[in-house]
């Protein structure tokens, strides 16, 4: 099959809404969106807390979080694998090779991004707002809701960056999910497998969807920053 034929077959798969194809796309989105939601739920308050608190070793924590933004997905996958494997501390839960395990691994990848960007943003904003908020009696942790709300557009960008990282990675979900057809097979693991098997149309079709998704995320990010500029000035 030459490349032109592969592309034609790939588009046929996408436009024909092939059920197996759609199931892979759906699972990928479900896993990544859940992971991003979990990371945001934990990362936004933790990042804000890190921004406003002062304790010995705070600098080291910030450096560590920033460094973890570059954590290789395969290493994150390995860590979750060790935790969830039969002999690991969380082995009895029986979560290895399930979508839940993939959510855990991707959340670990996204969390440092959300914490690091939230920390920086909230710290800058607090520098600007501190006296006014103190005047209103909003000192210490009571300043956090105001700061998170006023940073909402920039924070949305952080969360979308996390979504981009999670949706593109293959190493972590491959290790902890196992690429089981119809159960833990995502777009990225399917592309890796189908390419090595020689099923180029499926790999290409999924690749096209992934690229469209990335384009979409960037369009939303851009729109969020534009709307933010209009509201925030």
């Amino acid at each position: 099959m030459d490349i032109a034929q592969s592309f034609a077959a790939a588009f046929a798969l996408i436009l024909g809404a092939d059920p197996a194809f759609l199931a892979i796309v759906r699972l990928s989105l479900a896993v990544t969106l859940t992971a991003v939601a979990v990371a945001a739920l934990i990362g936004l308050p933790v990042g804000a807390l890190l921004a406003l608190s002062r304790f010995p070793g705070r600098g080291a924590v910030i450096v560590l979080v920033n460094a973890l933004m570059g954590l290789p997905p395969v290493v994150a996958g390995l860590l979750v694998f060790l935790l969830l494997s039969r002999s690991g501390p969380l082995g009895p839960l029986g979560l290895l090779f399930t979508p839940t395990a993939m959510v855990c691994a991707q959340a670990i990848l996204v969390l440092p991004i959300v914490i690091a960007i939230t920390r920086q943003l909230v710290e800058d904003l607090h520098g600007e707002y501190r006296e006014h908020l103190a005047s209103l009696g909003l000192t210490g942790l009571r300043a956090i809701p105001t700061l998170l709300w006023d940073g909402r557009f920039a924070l949305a960008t952080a969360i979308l960056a996390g979504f981009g990282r999670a949706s593109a990675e293959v190493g972590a979900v491959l290790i902890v999910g196992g690429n089981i057809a119809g159960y833990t097979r995502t777009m990225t693991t399917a592309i890796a497998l189908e390419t090595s098997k020689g099923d180029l149309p499926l790999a290409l079709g999924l690749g096209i969807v992934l690229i469209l998704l990335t384009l979409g995320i960037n369009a939303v990010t851009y729109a969020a920053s534009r709307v933010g500029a209009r509201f925030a000035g």
Partner: protein
Amino acid sequence: MRETTSVLPLAVSDLTFEAGGKRLVDGIGFTIPRGGLTVIIGPNGSGKSLTLRLCHGLIAPSAGAIAWAAGEGTLAGHKRHAMVFQKPVMLRRSALANVEHALAAAGAGWSERRSRAREALDRFGLTDKADRPARLMSGGEQQRLAIARAWALRPEILFLDEPTSQLDPGATRQIEQMILALKAEGVTLVMATHDMGQARRLADRVLFLHRGRLVEDAPAETFFSGPASAEARAFIAGDLVW
């Protein structure tokens, strides 16, 4: 039992603030009774802003006392003093939401917030700016909003830290009119400025600071017609830079 109805007078004694080994506010003492507009004047670095921040409780004094007639300047759990800054801090929200946020922080309920915020904007001619993002308004409008936001909290006493130093003459005039209107309403005002003309236009009483010390405390008329200290004479003549 004496019923407390006011946080004033505010009695400040031996107020001292040190930072980096320097004494920036040095043993200042004065009393602010109810009503009137007290101007704290002095050259840059004389400790005007620090004195206001110390009184408002934004920073803690190194020594000395700030004694309100009631609590920490609170009455029935409500803080009765507010502050307007030189550079207004505008939240990344609409003008109306900026006022509502301050009211929420003061514990006002949802519907009360809305109506009191509207009232504050109406009071200071910002009705048609209610839905504008605060940070996109002009400098003069931002400072008017900052005063409206402080007024919405119904303070007994308002501290103003050089509220017009970054504004053009037209906006300055508007702010000064607002300040006079607040005074007429019975709000006690303490304003820092280094603008001699503004002090002449607005002040009932002048506290003249120089290098962290209170050099003169006099009624405005007395201060401007016959300053007692050599420093004040030099400052009025425009010869005293610091």
